[in-house]
């Protein structure tokens, strides 16, 4: 028997419900408004009153409307066919909804139940299995989608029967397993998991030890992100958070990408819908959409589902990690999710923390980031979820609760600077304020030096130092004037500019410049640091700036040319001759 209730109060999307039997915190319920079912989640209980946040507009709802509780929390539906899908925040398939406008209560299936899947068993009768074990696989786009023992099953089970290789539908029983007491359980290709709980069916979570290439120079070269790690991008509006995330989603060396558009613009999601089916994945040559799943809760979609959207996305990411895949999860913007929490906390009349955010915000953020990670599965293989979130600080001021809490939780920090954005120095990642903790991990240093170049980290640190010294010189020039400092200061300043213009700045909209493979990054960094190592001598500061401007111009043309093309080498020659002329 399902618990039932009646609506007793309505404040925006917070509804109080008087219940007749037990309810659980975070339990899902449906409110019946006329002929429509509105989904809601319990967020507080006092006596016989359950307070639920409704995932829809509550317009037209009345006191005494009936409510039915489902006996479970908000769950993600997991199984083959999640890839290439476009979901709303509650994992309803947007493509299955009729009409141009969204309708409240139009809840569509997450998976396609009439599709045939080519199933190949990976276990045999008598095998002992636990949650997360691979019992079979089906091809999904270009990956081998592993069918796993449901994560909800605890303990050890024995395979009693398993179907033969062949074509099955998602809900068909593909295996029967028995528990210690001999009870049989039927398994299909589908399972459900409550989104707010982490999936932990793995053996071990080691420290990340390899980097994930993104093709973005100021990340890979300057502050690399490790596979299975966490990073975040705070920045005032218009500084390039979304453009940067989109660039990463197109280029990153990941098996699949889960994009959570969380309370941001619909047109930005449309951009993905429009472009990804046509763009190629640089590694596999397949279309980008084949490796991408989108969870869209745009800013005009119901606020409560915003919080759900990031959890839904994380759960799908963890599910694929369990198959031994490299998953990249992107959320834009986690501040909108925090704001959704704030709106609810406000309606619940909770005692507010800083800036009226709920008191437990830091814990909520930390728990979420902790779900990312590289893991050793029970079969010894690795899988990973790398998470990069954006943060939209109010007034662009980084001293606000969401940024501060996230800073404690994430290991890579890509601070976008208003000043750089104003100067169109994109990506506006501030080279000095940003950091990657991984550049201090011995295992990552070893990895970089082994895979790129024995001197790689040393060269990177040198480049950073040039930038730092350039910045200091610039401050002196500003205080004392162009003539008030030795010409050498100008040389220092321009060396930093050289690194800025050629390595850090990258045009996300240029076909060639947009993505730089690590090999090319190494080539350019060596070239630039090589140039910076020269102790050039100038008579006058204008001579200095003219020299570097010419140099930057030619080097920029290299960035715009196909790597190692005739054109590319032509510009390299140009660069060399400018330098030789100077040395002579």
């Amino acid at each position, binding site marked *: 028997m399902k618990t039932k209730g009646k609506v*007793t*109060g*309505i*404040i925006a999307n917070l509804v*109080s419900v008087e219940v007749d039997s037990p309810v659980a915190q975070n339990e899902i319920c449906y409110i019946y408004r006329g002929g429509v079912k509105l989904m809601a989640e319990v967020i507080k209980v006092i006596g016989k009153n359950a307070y639920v946040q409704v995932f829809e*507009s509550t*317009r*037209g*709802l*009345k*006191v005494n409307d009936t409510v039915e509780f489902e006996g479970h929390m908000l769950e993600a539906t997991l199984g083959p066919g999640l890839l290439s899908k*476009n979901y709303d925040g509650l994992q309803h398939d947007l493509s299955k909804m009729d*009409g*141009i*406008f*969204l*309708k*409240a209560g139009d809840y569509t299936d997450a998976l396609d139940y009439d599709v045939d899947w080519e199933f190949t068993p990976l276990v045999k009768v008598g095998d002992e299995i636990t949650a997360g074990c691979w019992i079979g696989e089906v091809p999904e786009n270009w990956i081998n989608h592993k069918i796993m023992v449901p994560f909800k099953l605890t303990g050890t089970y024995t395979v009693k029967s398993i179907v033969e290789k062949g074509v099955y539908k998602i809900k068909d029983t593909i295996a029967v397993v028995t528990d210690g007491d001999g009870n049989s359980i039927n398994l299909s290709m589908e399972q459900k998991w409550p989104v707010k709980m982490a999936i932990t069916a793995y053996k071990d979570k080691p420290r990340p030890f390899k980097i994930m290439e993104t093709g973005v120079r100021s990340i890979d070269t300057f502050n690399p992100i490790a596979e299975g790690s966490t990073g975040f991008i705070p920045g005032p*509006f*218009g500084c390039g958070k979304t453009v940067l995330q989109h660039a990463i989603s197109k280029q990153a060396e990941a098996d699949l990408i889960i994009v959570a558009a969380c*309370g941001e*613009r*619909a*047109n930005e*999601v*449309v*951009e993905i*819908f*429009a472009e990804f089916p046509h763009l190629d994945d640089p590694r596999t040559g397949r279309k980008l959409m084949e490796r991408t799943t989108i969870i*869209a809760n*745009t*800013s*005009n*979609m119901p*606020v409560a589902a915003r919080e759900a959207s990031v959890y839904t996305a994380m759960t799908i990411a963890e599910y694929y990690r369990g198959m031994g895949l490299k998953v990249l999860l992107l959320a834009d913007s986690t501040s*909108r999710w925090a*704001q959704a929490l*704030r*709106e609810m906390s*406000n*309606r619940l009349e909770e005692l507010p923390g800083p*800036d*009226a955010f709920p008191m437990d915000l830091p814990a909520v953020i930390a728990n979420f980031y902790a779900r990312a990670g590289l893991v050793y599965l029970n079969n010894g293989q690795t899988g990973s979820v790398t998470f990069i979130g954006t943060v*939209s600080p*109010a*007034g662009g001021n980084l001293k606000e609760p969401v940024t501060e809490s996230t800073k404690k939780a994430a290991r890579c920090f890509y601070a976008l600077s208003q000043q750089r954005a*104003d*100067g*169109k120095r994109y990506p506006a990642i501030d080279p000095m304020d940003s950091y990657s903790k991984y550049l201090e991990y011995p295992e990552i240093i070893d990895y970089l030096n082994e895979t790129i170049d024995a001197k790689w980290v040393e060269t990177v640190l040198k480049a950073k130092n040039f930038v730092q010294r350039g910045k200091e010189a610039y401050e002196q020039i*500003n205080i004392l*004037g*162009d003539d*008030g400092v030795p010409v050498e200061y100008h040389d220092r300043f321009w060396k930093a500019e050289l690194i800025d213009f050629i390595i850090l700045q990258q045009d996300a909209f240029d076909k060639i410049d947009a993505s730089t493979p690590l090999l090319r990054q190494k080539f350019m960094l060596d070239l630039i640091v090589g140039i910076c190592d020269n102790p050039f001598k100038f008579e006058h500061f*204008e001579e200095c700036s003219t020299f570097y*401007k*010419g140099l*930057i*111009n030619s080097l920029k*043309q290299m960035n*715009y040319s196909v790597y190692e093309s005739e054109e590319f080498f032509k510009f390299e020659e140009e660069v060399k001759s400018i330098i030789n002329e100077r040395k002579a």
Partner: protein
Amino acid sequence: METKAFQKIYTQLVGITKATCSLRAQGVANEELAMVHGRLAQVVKIIGDVVTLQVFGGTEGIPTNAEVIFYGEPPKLKVGDDLAGRFFNAYGEPLFGSTDVEGSPKEIGGPSVNPLRRKQPSELIATGIAGIDLNNTLVTGQKIPFFADPDQPYNQVMANVALRAKADKIILGGMGLTNDDFLYFKNVFENAGALDRIICFVNTTEQPPVERLLVPDMALTAAEYFATEKNEKVLVLLTDMTLYADALSIVSNRMDQIPSKDSMPGSLYSDLAKVYEKAVQFPDGGSITIIAVTTLSGGDITHAIPDNTGYITEGQLFLRKDSDTNKVIVDPFRSLSRLKQLVIGKKTREDHPQVMNAAVRLYADAANAKTKLENGFDLSEYDERCLKFAHDYSLRLLAIDINIDIDAMLNQTWELFAKYFTKAEVAIRQEFVKKYWPAEQ
């Protein structure tokens, strides 16, 4: 809105604040309309049998025994072709003694478009203003505000843009508009012979502030009708959204909500997004483009209203007075159109993106030179050239009184490049320099 026969009349209020009143009533639906003492009101909260109503006209003079009638439905607007060429108040009632609209009633503030059913915007809106077309190109389906101090001529610029934009319908949503500005819009539209394309929903400064909350929804409901039923290109002008946000804060304040930054409600982002996200390009050719005004106080964009707006809209157009040329310009640093990428160099000439960036970069160099000058340092020869360039660039391109086509804007910029700089200083992709650098005279 007419009252129906046999409606129950309540006559006992249990509470009155500056913007709301409450009473005991049963069977009331959330967000339905009511009439309180002859004033329109909307249900904003129900706790048990106590219903709280937001009274749009304010609660001044409402007695505790006021008559309250519930309408049983949320606010609606009658939509039809008959809307065109007319002026309405915030409730959608015709002004200037005109007759009722023929059409079918539609709920305002209705549902959002399924993002999957949107089309990617790709149609350029030419305004003739280089500060917009060259540096911050607009696209149909975009939403973008002017950020301007109250003394800037934003309403004039907006009216110009609207008339040049080749829209099928122009819908003006005026919130806290001074009567003078309202008449200005009316005159400009009349003189341009554009009245049959215009629809206005207006709340002037003489009317109660809470009424404003209805204006964007009214305007956008009308816009949705023409964009979806008639596949028309609709341009919606919303001025001034700062006053709209102020009205939001009045209501949330009266409802005892905990304010967040700058005394604004914690839901400001969602409230504003609900309005702005109505901008859309539909697959069948219809579109809604929103150009709004957000007035600033002393140019401060970190205040919660412009800040939240900036996070929602697809860029912003920042107006300021340029002291060098004594012109109002579209500030190239603080302005941005995020959808320009979709058209520049694609729908416009190939050199557009690079020319635009190079000019802004050189303009930034000029700004640095100016700072040097102000700090009492000598200028280099390059600095001098930058300053001259900035002056010409501001006068011939950034000023809002410019009206030329985009190719002309690009050619003029190349001319300025050649006049003041070397090719290396401009640093544009060589193929474009070869093609467009003006031949030496």
